[in-house]
């Protein structure tokens, strides 16, 4: 049991996978994911996925950028090597804003990109879902619904049968790598 990654089923259209997602989550499955050639509006809601936590990470990174920039410029310009340029104070706030802004943007962007990588456990060389015989068509014209074996409701036989009953084709049980 533990050496199974999950079950994957193929669907023909965006609307088919949308309704399949609704029915699967309605039955109480929680570890469900969809793989589609293009974004399908509302699919995240049909999958009952909660909001992403990435925003919180980004705001923390942005705040760090602001503090770091201020600390850096205050220490360099007013403490370590005070310099008076054209009558401005060594630490004059208007002159610090552009660097503060840039560092905030830089760290926020790092937080967003690398945070997304981290949450998705990327990069990785392989994923069990690629062993599905039809999965190469996900970049073309097919839609796939996967149910993780760690789902509390997961049952090899019952889950596969359920996916077939809602119109899934090529329902395959995939091995853990």
């Amino acid at each position, binding site marked *: 049991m533990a050496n199974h990654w999950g079950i994957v089923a193929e669907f023909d259209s965006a609307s088919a996978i949308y309704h399949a997602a609704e029915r699967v989550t309605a039955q109480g499955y929680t570890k469900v994911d969809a793989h589609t050639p293009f*974004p399908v*509006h*509302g699919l*995240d809601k049909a999958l009952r996925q909660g*909001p992403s936590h990435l*925003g919180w990470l980004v705001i923390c990174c942005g705040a760090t950028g602001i503090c770091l920039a201020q600390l850096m410029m205050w220490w360099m310009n007013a403490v370590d090597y005070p310099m008076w340029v*054209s*009558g*401005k104070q060594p630490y004059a706030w*208007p*002159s610090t*804003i*552009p660097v503060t802004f840039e560092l905030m943007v830089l760290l926020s962007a790092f937080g967003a990109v690398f945070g997304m990588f981290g949450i998705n456990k990327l990069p990785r060389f392989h994923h069990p879902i690629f062993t599905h015989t039809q999965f190469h068509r996900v970049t073309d014209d097919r839609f796939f619904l996967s149910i993780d074996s760690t789902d509390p409701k997961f049952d090899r036989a019952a889950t596969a049968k359920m996916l077939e009953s809602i119109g899934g084709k090529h329902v395959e049980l995939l091995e853990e790598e």
Partner: protein
Amino acid sequence: MTATMTVPPIQMVAPHVVIRVKDGDLRTSQMALLGVGAILLAVSLGLGMTSHDPARFYFSYLTGYMGVLGITLGALFFTMVQHITRAGWSVGVRRIAEHVTAAIPVMALLYLPIAIGGFDHLYGHWANAEIVAGQPNYDAIIAGKSSYLNKQFFFVRAGLYFAIWIGLSMFFRRTSLKQDETGDPALSLRMSRIAAPGLLLFALSTTFAAFDWIMSLDPHWFSTMFGICYFAGGFMSFLAFVALLARWITRQGYLREVITTEHFHDIGKLMFAFMVFWTYTNFSQYMLIWYANLPEETTWFAHRKEGGWSSVGTILVFGHFLVPFVLLMSRHIKRNAITLSLGAAFLLVIHWIDMQYLVLPNYHGGHGTEHAAHVVDPATLSAAGHPSFGHDLDLWLHNINLHDGLCYIGMLCLVAGITLMFVRKHNLVPLRDPRLAETLSFQNI
């Protein structure tokens, strides 16, 4: 290129959408807005023009006028940007924006008090300057600018600005309404093509209007960023205005399927973005002037440290940026009807204070005005030698008057009333816009 097919009627795309306001519905609100607006403006004009200090009144009038003009110009900009980007989400909102632009001819009429009665009070500093060498009060700087800053060219330009704005707004509004009947998708293409030169004309005319009507109040001073600062505040306020108006219309039972939480979320995002953009442009202007420290440039900010205006500078930093930045950042705030409306109303008030900051200090002790600068009582100075915030706030609240508020609110009510009048008169949504179906199913990711 001719279209080979037409967009199907809305009854086929979305039979559930209500397309017209019921006869007589919303009429009371429209009349109330128009009535209140007209009365407030009439009272203010009557009292102000006959008061002992009409100059002060015209500064109030200009404050309100530029504030509301920015909103109507924001509507024109919004309409053109939706066309040039071929936006799908905004088709329903765009119809309201088109009706807001229908108020621009009325704004042209409301310009008359400035042109006729207010001109010498507002722009006398350059219009009546002595610009012939050898005169006792010869003003070399204004003499150098006199080929641009002279009364004749000033009014020619004013006419040109209104011609551009009215021409563009009539084209986009009428073409959109025409598409309701013909369903010709080529009209959409035509509008997106005209939007490109339209936006160029809009940018130039709005920039120079801000130069002419606000910046020339202090004709020795100049800033090439001034026009974009004015535009940024105006467009933000248009988005706040349309968020409130659309919310109110949906509460009356119309447009509910067309302007949903998803669309309000997008309006909120744009409003937030242009609130930040206002900060960006204003800070850029401030920092360059502060850094270079050239007397002919710093004078503008120096006058805004007098007469209580430094407290308004502080209020704008917090009210036009820091506070709304924190409050409106969250997705949940923008998707909630009450919090988004509160934020929009707050920004409309802040926009009014921003206009005061641009216009009124030129009356209160600004450069070239004969009104004495306020003398600061040494007892109120803080340790650093500046008047305290509380003292300045007090002074500001004494310096502004009823007319500053009456003119702004009066014109705001008029524009809302005119918009509502056209909302009632025409189809609620662009019935046969090729992107209508996209609007109806629009969702934020």
